[in-house]
């Protein structure tokens, strides 16, 4: 079960080399995203697309808000 984070905890984890993954569609990502984020839309999450992620580092996923 993943751990929910608030903004302060996100900033703390980013300082510890965490990866950011935005799971919105590509257009939403292109419009605005957190600096340094990788975009993998939810529908495209799979063995191929996650190869660009480093499993040894913490991974923070986000979308727009509480949707």
């Amino acid at each position, binding site marked *: 079960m993943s751990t929910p984070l608030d903004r302060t905890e996100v900033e703390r984890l980013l300082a510890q080399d965490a990866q950011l993954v935005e799971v919105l569609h590509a257009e939403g990502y292109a419009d*605005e995203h957190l600096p340094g984020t990788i975009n993998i839309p*939810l529908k495209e999450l799979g063995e191929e697309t996650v190869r660009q992620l480093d*499993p040894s580092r913490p991974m923070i996923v986000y979308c727009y808000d509480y949707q």
Partner: protein
Amino acid sequence: MSPRAAARLESLGFTKVYDYVAGKADWGSAGLPLEGAAAPWVGELARSEVPTCRLDEPLRGVRERVRASAFDTCIVVNEHGVVLGRLGRHALRADDGATVEEAMTAGPGTVRPNLRGRDGGEADARAKPDRPARYPLRRHPRRPPAPGRCRGGGRLRVLADRLSHYREAQLREG
């Protein structure tokens, strides 16, 4: 959506998965940096040095402070920076004996720092043309509940102009 994505990543073998449930709306509304084609956001264009004052201050001192600034308005905030009111030009001319609380307009409109500049310009275009609104910026994440805190201010029409100049400069740079 992000809880499902986090669950999917775990199913793919990732063990250090965290879910930023409030997402980029929360990040941007706190005035933290964003990147992307929607740049610039109002928070980048607004002026953070807007004068502020407290409810119980005598108006005379506030007026002098505003005169010394580049603004003709003052945002009234509480001890936590939460926006309570605004002193416009007319209010600033009130009797010296008046307090800020007596002279201010309560509950002014605010916008979040992550409002896109072009959206801010559209909002201002809908305001009364002869009295364009000035908006303090607020920080107002949806959860946990928190009142809007003043982070800056500006006239949205001015922000829209600055956005236009920004876009023209981008086009010139190719």
